[in-house]
C-alpha cells in the first residue's frame, strides 16, 4: 500500500497543533516521527488511525483494494487495548478474530516476543513492559500493512527493543509500512525522519481541560 498525507493541519480545543504537514510512504518504508513533548506526534498518529479529523489536508491510501485506512492498520500506543482480567491468549485471540486476516496463533506471536510463559496469565499480573510486549504481539496475530506505533519502546528492556527492531525490519521487508512516534532510535536502517514543531513555545497557562464533573 502507499500512504500519502498532504498539507495536514489540526486543532485541538482551539489550539493549533501543527499545519502544512506532508509526507508519502511507500511499501517497505518507515517514518520516524520526532519532536518535543506536546508537539503533536500522538495527534498525527490519531489522525492516521482515523480517531481525529484533520482541519485541513487529506490522507489517502492507494493499492489496498476496497479496504479503508482504518482496516489497514495496527495501532500500538499508550492505551494498549488489553483487558486486564483476560489472559494474554484470550486478548490476542480476540484481536485476531475481530481484526480478521489471521497469520499466527497467540502462542506463536508470544514466542516471538519471548513471553510464552505469560500465555495463560491474566494481563493484570504482567509488568508494564510485559503488557507492552503482549500489545506488540497483536501486530503478529493478524496481517495489516501499516503499523502505527506510539513510543513502542516505552517500558521495554534492551533485549525486547532488539526484538521489536527485528520484527519491524521483517515487516518492512515484506512490503509493510511503519509510522512510529519516538524519542529514541528504533534501530531501523534507512528510516526517514519527520520532525514536528519548531522551537518550544513560550510557556502559558494550560487551558482547563478537566470538566467539573
Amino acid at each position, binding site marked *: 500500500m502507499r500512504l500519502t498525507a498532504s498539507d495536514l493541519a489540526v486543532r485541538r480545543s482551539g489550539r493549533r497543533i501543527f499545519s502544512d504537514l506532508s509526507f508519502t510512504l511507500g511499501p517497505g518504508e518507515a517514518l520516524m516521527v520526532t519532536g518535543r513533548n506536546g508537539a503533536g506526534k500522538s495527534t498525527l498518529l490519531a489522525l492516521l488511525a*482515523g*480517531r481525529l479529523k484533520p482541519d485541513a489536508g487529506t490522507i489517502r491510501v492507494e493499492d489496498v483494494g476496497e*479496504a479503508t485506512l*482504518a*482496516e489497514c492498520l*495496527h495501532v500500538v500506543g499508550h492505551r494498549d487495548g488489553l483487558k486486564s*482480567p*483476560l489472559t494474554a491468549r484470550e486478548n490476542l485471540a480476540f484481536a485476531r478474530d475481530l481484526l480478521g486476516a489471521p497469520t499466527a496463533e497467540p502462542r506463536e506471536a508470544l514466542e516471538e516476543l519471548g513471553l510464552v510463559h505469560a500465555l495463560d496469565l491474566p494481563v493484570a499480573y504482567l509488568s508494564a513492559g510485559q503488557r507492552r510486549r503482549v500489545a506488540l504481539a497483536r501486530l503478529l496475530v493478524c496481517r495489516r500493512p501499516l503499523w502505527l506505533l506510539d513510543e513502542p519502546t516505552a517500558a521495554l528492556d534492551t533485549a525486547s527493543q532488539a526484538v521489536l527492531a527485528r520484527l519491524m525490519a521483517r515487516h518492512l521487508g515484506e512490503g509493510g509500512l511503519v509510522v512510529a512516534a519516538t524519542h529514541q532510535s528504533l534501530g531501523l536502517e534507512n528510516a526517514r525522519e519527520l520532525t514536528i514543531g519548531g522551537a518550544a513555545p513560550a510557556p502559558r497557562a494550560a487551558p482547563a481541560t478537566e470538566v467539573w464533573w
Partner: protein
Amino acid sequence: MVIRALAALVRRDLALAARVGGSGALSLVFFLMIVAVVPFALGPDLNLLSRIGPSILWLAAVLATLIGLDRLFQADEEDGSLDLMTGAPVPLELVVLAKVLAHWLTTGLPLALASPLFGLLVALDGTAMGATALTLLIGTPALTFVGAVGAALTASIRRGGLILAVVVLPLMIPTLIFGVSASQAASGGTVPFATPLIILAALSLIAAVIGTLAAAAALRWSE
C-alpha cells in the same frame, strides 16, 4: 468473517462479565436489594404488596439496568479497545449491536429469569409471576438499547454515570408504563394481556434499531 468478529466480541464481553470486577452479578444483586427492601417499607399488607408487586419488580428492573450501563463503552474507550473495534472490518453499528447483546445477556436476561423468584418476596401469585417474567424478558432489551445511547454519549466523560441516568431515564418511561400495564393486565382488568405486551415488543424492536444507530453515531461523533 463478520460473524466471527461479532462472536469474538460477544464471547469476550461475556468472559469479562464473568471475571472479577464484571458487572454481571452487580445489577442482579441491586435488583434483589430493592425488591427485598420495599416490603419492609410498606408493611405486612399482602394484598397491597401483591397488587403493586409487578410495579415494584419493573421499577427495580429499570434502576438495576442503569447500574453498569456507564461502563458499557467507557471501559473500552479508556483502554483503547474501542480503537481496535473501529479498525475491525465490521460496521460500527454491528459492533454496538454485539456489545449491547452481550450486555443484555449478562444483565437483562438474568433479571427476567430471576424475577419469578423475587416475585415471591412481593406476594405475587403464579399468573402474575409468569406474566411479569415474560414482560421483563420482552421489555428489558428496550431498556438496554435505550441505555446504550446514553452510554455511548457519555463514553468519553469520566464519572458520567449521573449524566447517563438523567439522559436515559425519561426515555425508559414508555417501556416502564407498558411493562407494568401488561403485567397487571394478566391478573385481571379490562385490557386484554396481549395488547400492552405487543406494544412492549414493538418498543423493544424500535429501540433495537434506533438505539444501535444512535449509539454508533454518538461513538463516531465523540471521536
